[in-house]
């Protein structure tokens, strides 16, 4: 099994530590993993803005970069969802179909494909999960509060096995943080208000570290936390699962 590591553009440029943690984690689990050089982006920023036609070259490049891997794994539910859902704008060649089918969000890959939960991590802190919408309702990484399905959560399954970690329950289990890509700029007022409310829920729930499988949501929340000097830290779930404090 050969895995291609997909590192989304903003993680590559702004949060390399998330990429490093993802790679180390997969290596720790004995996965034969490689980062194909020359990656850029999944094309989501264009698609969500209404310009998916302008993103075709980007999507095609993604397929070229990853077509020879058995699995493509990335630490971002949102970008993975975009590949699976919106690459319908490309001609559906065998390569495109295979790439769409075999692209996985990191936690999903560890839990569903590798069948592992205990990764030997320890992280003695009070943690709250931000269940990002595209991971939750797009990739179905867990049950969502609107649907009457039995409760499950891929992120919880993994975090519960982390030594010393205390998982906190939020008042609103899976409300959107208000990031939404370009929404965060074009609808700034609402975006900021949603983020503030999300953070307050974590504070009210006695959380020290907010984590999640999508660093874009966390980037938005972190921006607000730092600006307002709030006593919270933000860490991608890969960083927690890779830590051994």
């Amino acid at each position: 099994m050969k895995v291609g590591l997909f590192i989304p553009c903003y993680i590559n440029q702004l949060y390399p530590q998330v990429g490093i943690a993802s790679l180390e984690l997969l290596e720790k689990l004995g996965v034969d993993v490689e980062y194909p050089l020359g990656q850029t982006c999944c094309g989501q920023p264009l698609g969500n803005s209404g310009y998916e036609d302008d993103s075709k070259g980007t999507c095609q490049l993604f397929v070229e970069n990853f077509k020879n891997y058995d699995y493509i794994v990335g630490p971002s539910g949102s970008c993975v969802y975009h590949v699976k859902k919106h690459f319908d704008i490309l001609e559906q060649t065998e390569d495109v179909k295979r790439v769409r089918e075999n692209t996985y969000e990191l936690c999903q890959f560890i839990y569903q494909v590798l069948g592992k939960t205990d990764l030997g991590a320890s992280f003695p802190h009070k943690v709250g999960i931000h269940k990002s919408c595209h991971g939750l309702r797009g990739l179905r990484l867990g049950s969502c509060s609107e649907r009457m399905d039995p409760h499950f959560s891929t992120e919880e399954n993994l975090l519960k096995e982390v030594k010393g970690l205390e998982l906190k329950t939020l008042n609103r289990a899976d409300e959107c943080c208000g990031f939404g890509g370009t929404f965060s700029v074009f609808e700034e007022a609402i975006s900021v208000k949603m983020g503030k409310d999300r953070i307050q829920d974590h504070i009210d729930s006695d959380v020290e570290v907010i984590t999640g499988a999508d660093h874009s949501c966390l980037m938005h929340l972190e921006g607000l936390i730092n600006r307002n000097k709030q006593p919270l830290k933000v860490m991608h779930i890969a960083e927690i699962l890779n830590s051994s404090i």
Partner: protein
Amino acid sequence: MAHAEAAAKFNENEAKVNWHDKALWFVRQKRDKQAHKIQGWEQLRDYASALKANVLSNLDNYLVQFEENAKKNGVTVHWAANAEEHNKIVHSILQKHNAKKIVKSKSMLTEECHLNPFLEANDIEVIDTDLGERIVQLAQEPPSHIVLPAIHKTKEEVDELFQEHLGTKPSGGNPEYLTREARKHLRNKFLQADAAITGVNFAVADTGGFVVCTNEGNADMGAHLAKVHIACMGMEKLIPQEKHLGIFLRLLARSATGQPITTYSSYFNKPEEGKEMHIVIVDNGRTEQLSREDFRRSLHCIRCGACMNTCPIYRRSGGHSYDATIPGPIGSILSPGKDLTKHSSLPFASTLCGSCSDVCPVKINIHEQLYKWRQIIVKDVPQPFVKKNIMKAVGSILAKPKTYDFVGKSTRFMLKNTPKSLINSKINTWGHARDLPEVKGDNFEEWYKKKTEK
């Protein structure tokens, strides 16, 4: 005004936003509790969605069947291609009976057709009898929510409105007192009414009857007291058979307000002796929406408002920010079908979180349709020259790894070396209220190259 500006204005009063958000979230939680109590809720949603799909693909047959059966029951059936025709038909029925005082039960269709101003211009008094509707009518505002039309008003604001228009005493917003006064006021209007107008929640093709759901019994009071009952319905309100009511009635109230069933779910079949019953079936853009494959499913909507209650943006921007008859997520996919230019900001008033699609009792893929509208809007509605070209440039940068690498490195260099005061200035919308990420060391690709070269 575009949604973002209206929403920003609404957000100037944060305390009110918090109150609005909590009020609607409370309804969402009530809905969750009731939905949990029903075994097979998800299956019910599947049934309802499949039935609506069946209705929409056989709409012509069901409409004819409904008309035939309604006529057999002694009901007069009218057809209106658009809002104007609808209003004229209603007016002509009222003229025939020389009806000057009308009571109306809540109907979003008559809102959509702007029936009230039309009748008022023709010297006819129209009283909205749903309490929330009456409140916004007195305030001369459109409803801000399709089920909770006055949810944007506090009880203190209602108190002031009633003092001004109904001559009540100041009560500090005492709900019991205000409700009692509204009841007295409306009771008189019911007794004096010459005709009653109601909406239609479900029209049953195999019986020719229709169901109207209210919690205040106002539709029933109006329809039973007046000599003439006019029911106005959008043509998508049909369901095939009477037995399907069990599915929809169970879903509707639970999704709307978290009640097991609406207090009054009245099934109207034929006029009482000596009275008249009319049904006006309205298209007003619905066949056009039906013809758009990607948006057809928006016509599944049973107007429960659950998507509004669950929408984190609606809860924090208020219904009026959508500037449309049907606000919120469902409105944001219906309205562009009517006027793409006017409503071009609505599909962007979403993070595409998908909560609306999962809460929807008839499984409308709302967030997917929002995405689809965005693709159409940037092509069909003139976009700012700069934005269009930036997008094109971004598209070509991201398609070329070397250019991307150069731009990535330059951006990181800029973020590292530009003074914070400049980064967080007003020009940068992101930095207005949020800090930008701190950039240190190599990017991931540089780190990876160094690691593998070792």
